[in-house]
């Protein structure tokens, strides 16, 4: 493989004269913020979209891809963000889907499929049980199945579209290993991402895109995360100074909160914590250690078995979601696509959620759409949410923009307590910076913020105080001044603090 060059001038200008070349056995990263055009150019390469100009060359020969099948024939495969797997079928059946081994011309030779997939997985060191059903596989394993699917088609160029977005940190490690290994075996890999640490960890070269344009191509050995991120965003990223504030009054006090699961297992054990006004309190922990359930109890989605929740001194434990919200609690849930927003609802409807009882928007049960739309348009402008119209469906927004919209909606409650979970999961650097700055502003305005995040750097950056959760209990509390990745990390793994003065 010599080079792929591609030009794509004009149009809506999703891509403007982009040139990319890729060598054999190379791991090339393409980074850029949401909407920078990196997905578009890959869709063109994979035949999902057609260029309005420019050409693609493989081994020096010009190619035109009408559809993914023709790209596949030239050895280009893509592992998409949302998997194209059939849940009721086995891994083997999914891997061979589209080019099944045959018996007597028409029959599907499932045994041979299992053998072939087993052999393939051995060949590439992707250990897998081909007979497992997809619906019983964890996300990481499903992704592995997608990779095998592409390998089964004999792809020489494999495009990964934001592959780590759906994975847990441990699974990400495995994925990065796989990427290195595939490149080592002579496959050419294109990695689309906005996680710069992954780029630095595995890529040979990195293409930076912004606003549909190709900004630079750098060797990762000769650059830094700082340089990449400022090229990506187009300006220097400056961490906002977090001002020192005087101690505020207690807004949230939680005493001995406990919850058991349906099988009697303990999910949250005896958690006590407090959040004061003008304070960001972080809850660190590997996801799945009870953080989600703890928050759900705080906002009224789950009823605790035991314990007290005092919001501004008033008992809220076991109360209805609406009562708790009315008492001054806003909530940004961890998953914007399932709980944060209804993807089929318009932006107006999405923004209206939980605001519908407000006097300015609601007269005797009739919604005032006009005044709602006016205030929402202003809100979206303030939060720099890129959208085409308020009538657009919220599912059409990019992840970062939808997240900003949800944060805007919840912050605009001006609640005394803001409970926020995974505020920047899967959003680009620009949106992340924006959301962080907003949270810091809210803190300065005297809000009490409870932040849950599985991203440790986010917790360390924002929190005045950090609780670490492990197996449903609070395994330690660290002040900002003392906290670092190491001592929090130890607590996250269930360890104990030794450095504490006795």
């Amino acid at each position, binding site marked *: 493989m010599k080079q792929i060059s591609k030009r794509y001038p004009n149009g809506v200008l999703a891509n403007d004269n982009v040139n990319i070349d890729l060598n054999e056995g190379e791991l090339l990263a393409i980074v850029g913020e949401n909407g920078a055009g990196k997905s578009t150019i890959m869709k063109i390469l994979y035949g999902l979209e057609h260029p309005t100009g420019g050409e693609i060359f493989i081994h020096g020969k010009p190619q035109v891809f009408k559809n993914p099948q023709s790209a596949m024939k030239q050895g280009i495969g893509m592992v998409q963000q949302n998997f*194209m797997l059939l849940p009721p079928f086995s891994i083997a059946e999914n891997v061979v*889907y589209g080019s099944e081994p045959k018996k007597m011309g*028409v029959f599907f030779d499932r045994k041979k499929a299992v053998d072939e997939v087993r052999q393939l997985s051995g060949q590439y060191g992707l250990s897998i049980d081909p007979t497992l059903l997809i619906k019983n596989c964890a996300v990481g394993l499903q992704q592995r199945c997608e990779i095998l699917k592409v390998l089964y088609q004999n792809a020489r160029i494999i495009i990964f579209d934001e592959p780590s977005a759906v994975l847990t940190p441990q699974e990400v490690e495995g994925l990065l290993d796989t990427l290195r290994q595939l490149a080592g075996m002579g496959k050419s890999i294109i990695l689309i991402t906005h996680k710069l640490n992954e780029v630095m960890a595995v890529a040979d070269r990195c293409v930076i895109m912004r606003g549909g344009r190709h900004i630079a191509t750098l060797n990762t050995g000769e650059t830094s995360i700082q340089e990449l991120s400022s090229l990506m965003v187009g300006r220097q990223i400056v961490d906002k100074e977090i001002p020192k504030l005087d101690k505020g009054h207690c807004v949230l006090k939680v005493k001995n909160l406990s919850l058991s699961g349906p099988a009697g297992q303990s999910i949250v054990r005896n958690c006590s914590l407090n959040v004061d006004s003008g304070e960001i309190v972080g809850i660190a922990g590997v996801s799945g250690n009870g953080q989600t359930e703890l928050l759900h109890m705080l906002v009224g989605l789950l009823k605790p078995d035991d314990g007290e929740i005092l919001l501004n001194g008033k008992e809220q434990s076991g109360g209805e979601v609406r009562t708790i919200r009315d008492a001054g609690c806003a909530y940004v849930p961890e998953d914007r696509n399932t709980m944060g927003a209804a993807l089929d609802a318009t932006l107006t409807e999405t923004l209206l959620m939980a605001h519908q009882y407000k006097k300015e928007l609601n007269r005797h049960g009739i919604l005032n759409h006009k005044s709602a739309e006016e205030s929402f348009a202003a809100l979206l402008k303030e939060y720099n949410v890129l959208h085409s119209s308020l009538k657009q469906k919220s599912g059409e927004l990019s992840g970062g923009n939808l997240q900003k919209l949800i944060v805007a909606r919840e912050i605009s409650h001006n609640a005394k307590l803001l409970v926020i979970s995974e505020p920047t999961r899967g959003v680009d650097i620009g949106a992340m910076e924006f959301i962080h700055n907003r949270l810091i502003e809210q803190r300065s305005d005297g809000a009490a913020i409870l932040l849950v995040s599985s991203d440790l750097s986010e917790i360390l950056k924002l929190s005045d105080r950090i609780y670490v959760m492990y197996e449903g209990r609070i395994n330690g509390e660290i002040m900002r001044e003392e906290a670092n990745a190491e001592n929090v990390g130890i607590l996250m793994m269930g360890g104990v603090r030794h450095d504490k003065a006795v």
Partner: protein
Amino acid sequence: MDTNFIAAILNSAIRSTTPIMMAALGSAICNRVGVFNVALEGQMLIGAFSAIAINWFTGSIALSVIGGILIGGMIGLLVGYLQVRFKAADMVVGTSINLFVGALSAILLFILFGVRGSFKNPALLSLPAIQIPILKDLPFISVLLRNFTAMDYFAYLIAIGMYIYLFKTIWGYHTLSVGVKIEAAESMGLHAQRTQIMAVMVSGLLCGFGGVTLSMGQVTLFTENMTAGRGFIGMAACNLGRSNPLLIILASLFFGFCDASASIAQNTIPSQLTQSIPYISTIIALIFFSRERMKKIKNSKAA
């Protein structure tokens, strides 16, 4: 009890099973590609009517059978186009087609034969009964198999054939994939919509087949609304059989048995009551099996 009596009941049950099984298989193929087809009843009724009409005008059994099946298939094609290509709501399409076919057959009955309600004539030909040598001389078996037509046997071959197609062939795998995740099928370059429309058309052919056995099998006549909900009972049988053609054979036999016992019990119990047996049994069976299934789902989740 007299063994001949038992054989007669089973005989009647199996013959009642054929149209229900055809509707159930039609429902299954639609379910498998992710289309909810409510028009089975209409597809069957048009098949029953067409067979009698062609029978009368051509005097050919072969033409009646083929015509009934094909016209059922045409209605299926229409349903498929409306639901798949034009994204019309399934309940609306199904209900309209059922009402439309009901009215159309009543009108044509009057226009073509000048009668209302039902049409019967000695000149109409019935499907010939198949005599199997040796078996026809055995005491119990001979009663059991009495008056079975070729179509009664063929129905089981269709069910087995559909099973092999769906679960053993590559095309079947592709067909199933359309119902599981249409985007995945399209990303592999399959014509997902075409597959769906074809499946609905096949359901029309199957229901047409069922309709023909109804109007030319046990009896040889056409009455308005003679399908009497068999399309819907077929949907229930499909549900009980979890859209698996082999399980559907069993589920259809159960409903066929209920149908047959309704007509047998007519002599002793008021007919208003017996006529409701197939429908009541449908509801009870659905409740029973749904409960079992919910329990299983619950258990597997807890595990």
